[in-house]
């Protein structure tokens, strides 16, 4: 038996390809949306991977440092590194802000790291150009996505930094490129006020009678000193010694230091399950809408194509064609349309993904799931046309 659907498609291949191309662009948008979600999840995982930490020690009762604000004293790391099972501990600060370069600015996550080696917690694990930070101040390593080049001078708050190294895939959970600077500079950028604000604060404090008690002459100076010092970091990243479990190290820190400690699993749950949960639901809604729109378009196209063949279908039924042969013809055409659309969509998404400003991750699972979803949508969309075709009276082929 010849394939009626195949012959019809060959006869009017231009119409099918053109329609499939349009549908394909819609499918491409759907695949890209899925890729945007995967990219967000991957960004979150990459952030955790690249921090080279087994534990994140943060302020008590917070989900810091990525999902919530967290401040801990910057000398706590000394007591933590002395605890059983801790191999290395390092302070780190994170601050998402606009980083200026000349007349342009880039949104980036400025990360303060302490001096050490390339595998120290918080450090960028590998560079694609230049070197790591070696000085205590005013050097920066930037992700290539920020658009900076080696030797560029960038401005963070009131200080200027020289880009000495470039790294890749070092992004925040929001997809913003990371810029690494020395911890002291990062603390200043995050916690220190500008000069005018400091002057205003000093004036307010010196006029406060509580700080000018006659019996305590050094109080005002001590208060002013504390107000301009910046001895906070957002988190302490901890690497474990081999053979220690995360929980057996985390529990004593939480108990004795009154801090919150998250292991890798818990931190991933915070990032993926909480921080980007709303965004993922948003994307999920878009995917549902796009699926419904795709189904409606396929249904309309198949319905129209079937309407164009009503007379032929009546003739086919009159000469004894089985209903399942006619239904199969319509179903095969819907599936062919879906196949063309999926191939076009997959190609479109593959070429479009690198153009997006944020990371779009197209994974094979999504493509396979997308393919079967498109096929299912095509099957469902063809039902209306099949029902209509099966209702065609063969008598319509006979005049009168």
């Amino acid at each position, binding site marked *: 038996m*010849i394939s009626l659907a195949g*012959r019809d498609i060959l006869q009017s291949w231009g119409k099918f390809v053109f329609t499939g191309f349009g549908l394909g662009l819609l499918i491409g948008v759907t695949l890209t949306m899925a890729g945007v979600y995967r990219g967000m999840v991957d960004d979150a995982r990459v952030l955790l991977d690249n921090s080279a930490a087994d534990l994140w020690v943060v302020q008590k009762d917070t989900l810091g440092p990525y999902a919530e604000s967290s401040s801990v004293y910057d000398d706590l790391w000394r007591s933590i590194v002395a605890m059983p099972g801790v191999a290395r501990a390092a302070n780190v600060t994170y601050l998402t802000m606009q980083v200026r370069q000349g007349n342009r600015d880039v949104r980036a996550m400025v990360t303060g790291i302490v001096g050490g080696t390339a595998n120290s917690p918080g450090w960028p694990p590998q560079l694609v150009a230049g070197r790591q930070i070696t000085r205590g101040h005013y050097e920066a390593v930037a992700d290539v996505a920020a658009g900076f080049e080696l030797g560029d001078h960038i401005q963070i708050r009131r200080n200027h930094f020289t880009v000495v190294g470039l790294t890749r895939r070092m992004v925040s959970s929001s997809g913003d490129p990371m810029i690494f600077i020395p911890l002291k500079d990062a603390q200043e950028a995050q916690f220190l006020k500008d000069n005018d604000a400091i002057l205003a604060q000093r004036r307010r404090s010196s006029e406060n009678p509580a700080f000018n008690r006659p019996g305590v002459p050094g109080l005002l100076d001590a208060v002013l000193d504390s107000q301009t010092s910046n001895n906070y970091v957002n988190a302490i990243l901890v690497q474990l010694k081999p053979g220690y479990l995360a929980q057996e190290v985390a529990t004593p820190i939480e108990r004795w230091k009154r801090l919150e400690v998250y292991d890798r699993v818990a931190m991933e749950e915070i990032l993926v399950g909480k921080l980007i949960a709303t965004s993922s639901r948003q994307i999920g809604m878009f995917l549902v809408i796009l699926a419904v729109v795709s189904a409606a378009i396929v249904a309309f196209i198949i319905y129209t194509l079937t309407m164009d063949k009503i007379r032929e279908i009546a*003739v086919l039924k009159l*000469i*004894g*064609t089985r209903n399942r042969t006619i239904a199969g013809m319509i179903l095969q055409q819907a599936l062919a349309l879906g196949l063309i659309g999926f191939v076009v969509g997959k190609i479109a998404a593959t070429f479009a993904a690198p153009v997006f400003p944020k990371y779009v991750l197209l994974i094979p699972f999504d493509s396979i799931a997308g393919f079967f979803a498109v096929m299912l949508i095509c099957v469902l969309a063809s039902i209306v046309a099949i029902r209509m075709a099966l209702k065609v009276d063969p008598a319509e082929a006979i*005049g009168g």
Partner: protein
Amino acid sequence: MSDKGIRIEGLKKRYGEGDTAVEALKHVDMQVAPGEVVGLIGPSGSGKSTLLKGLGAVIDPTAGRMVLGDDVIYDNGWKVHDLRALRRDKIGFVFQAPYLIPFLDVTDNIALLPMLAGVPNAKARAMALELLIALDVQHRAGAMPSQLSGGEQQRVAIARGLVNRPPVILADEPTAPLDSERAMAVIRILNEMADRFETAIIVVTHDEKIIPTFKRIYHIRDGVTHEEKGEGRAFA
């Protein structure tokens, strides 16, 4: 006259019920022998199309009896179970417009019917080619319907009606879109095919040019058929 071919006795068809009922066919008697071509003529609204649909097994008569070859198709409310297979195997159709399937070439338009009946593709195409040769359109075997002239399309449609060697062919205004010369050619072909394949052919027509060619004619008026002798003129 032979008992084979098609025989209709007292066929009736009523649409609707009660006061709104319309009796489209009141009493139809017909008999067409194998190899015979008869004309069925009548004014608009006389019941021609209803009769054709009844003969084509696409509507169920209200009463009467229809016998096709040796098979009883209808008998006062009883009918053959699989009308679709009956239409495929026992009845050939030729329409006013050829209604060829536009996405199948000439050969496959004809071969589709035997393929639907389960005949292997190669054999079905051989059957189609045999008919194309008989109808002198074998040179168009690979063409698409849109590439054929009106006369060629109608000959292909006749070939499609004949390919399963049905005992009866129903031709609904087969010459309507054709000029005189081509109309006469189609009627000649139908007569040749009827003779060659022992097929009973009923030609529904308004075409004054071809009516004189029939040896027997059934007039239908107000749902009742009347048989009369035709002129049986030779084809021009």
